[in-house]
């Protein structure tokens, strides 16, 4: 069972941003990306114990920031 499952709704989050999040945080946890009709779904396991308190929240923040940056045409 995953430590956490995060569903990023397609109506809000950009696909590139979700992929960027997986890449950026992949070195601190195992992150499996799947998709369904409504959302990008990240199953997060094996979180680095040093970061387990914050990793999921920081990942969600990162994806949101990347989405905002992609919509405004600049870097986050």
């Amino acid at each position: 069972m995953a430590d956490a499952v995060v569903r990023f709704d397609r109506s809000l989050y950009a696909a590139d941003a979700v992929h960027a999040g997986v890449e950026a945080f992949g070195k601190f946890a195992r992150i499996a990306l799947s998709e369904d009709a409504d959302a990008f779904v990240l199953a997060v396991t094996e979180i680095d114990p040093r970061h387990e308190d914050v990793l999921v929240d920081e990942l969600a923040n990162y994806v949101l920031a990347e989405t905002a940056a992609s919509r405004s045409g600049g870097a986050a």
Partner: protein
Amino acid sequence: MSQRSITLRRPQVASDELAWFRFGRIGQRVVITNDVGDWELLDEPEFEDLLGGRIDEEHPRHAVLQAKGFIRNDLDVAGLASRLRRKKRFLGQGPHLGIIITTLRCNQNCRYCHASRTEMDRVDTDMSLETAKKVVDHIMQTPSPYLNIEFQGGEPTVAFESLKFIVEYSREKNRYENKRLEHSLVTNMTTMTEEMAEWLVRNNVMVCTSLDGPAEVHNYNRTWQKGSNAYDSVIHWIEWFNNRYIELGRDPRLWHVDALMTTTRKTIDHWKEVIDLYVSLGIKNIHLRPLNPFGFAMSTWKRIGYSPEEYLEFYTNCLEYILELNRQGVEISEGTASVFLMKMLTPDDPNFVDIRSPVGSGTGQLAYMYDGSIHASDEARMIAAMGDDLFDLGHVDNTTFDEAVNHPTVKAIAVASILDSLPMCADCWNAPFCGVRPLHNYMLQKDLFAQRARTPKCAEHMGIARFLLSKLDGDEDGSVERIFRRWTISRPRDPEEGLDAAPPVRDPSSVESGGPTSGHSRLPVLE
């Protein structure tokens, strides 16, 4: 291990139907607040209804959300502007608190001394009468119609002649200034004599002392000379003053010794005894002040300090107990809670210089050191005493009042504490009630702005506001609100009350030796 599941959706927002507000979560509830300090707690579905524009006139929440200005339809913009003007009316008034350090000498050696006191033989740290006169001439130029001159130290009673001169000279000067002028003394009581005490009572100088708890805690925190007992001294004089006010026929709710405590690790272990002591002495307000990162506290932190989480646990234990005592008919309130509650429950801001936007440094208060140097605040002079003059504003010999309050440093502190302009604070639901502390930030992170969300003050203020709103939210019968509203009431004192009474009979058992002070009496001030 339980699985955490997060679903991040795009909320439906009918932005053209909403007035402007901030929001956040308190437990399972959503709190919404606006600039005039109105707030409401909603269930998640209600919040979604609000965002989605589904709160129509039939909705049970419509009336209250409309009245509080959270719905744009029929929004009373002029009314909100008027209320905001009232909340912020302190902005145009200038400093109302003048802190004067008549000496840095002190006979106590408190473990947390924020003031960096000096030894009793350091008479070079006493304020001369010549400097005292210049200080009064300076602070009385404030445009504020209300002025509280607060004596701090060191222990101000060891330089009692300077104190008397300042009271008498400022009162004389006020015959022409016509301000509402008050004087208060922060003293450890250990050098108090009956002659001094009677003079203070007769001259309406309000007395504030430090009482850290029962003898075990007080004497541990506030070390005095060998063989002496600081606790016995402070208890004696609290009772003396309070009895004297009653003898003079003064209302004890208005005329009494205020007491402050500074929380150390030792206090946390004895929290209930501390409150019981205050109640037994008839003290109506306890201010559960945390340690500040100034003075000797910086070097003793490892022994007497604690984490923000530990402080909040202590604070909420105390407040639950204080609430229970109130339910039993005991009149006692908590200082920081009263400041927040006044912002949450009344149309006014208490103008408490430490929890304001902007913070009061330079705009709500000025501090004058024994040598005539001018500082943006009490904390600024504490930092100066540690050898850092960043917050110095000049000297009474060569700096005008206008130059001091328009000093670039004052402007920088204001910019760093106007919540509307600070990232994260500007959007925080607690903004209408909170206040940031640039000088704390500077001491902890060497940055006026700092990463505020990581500061102890943020944890403290968020925790306290959450606690208070949670209590009001679960208040089915209105009993909590009735208690909280009592804590927000502040009545002015009549300076003539009881002054025609006879002088006291001398108490032969009075204590006539004593020691120093630290802490300060900046209690909420109504304007």
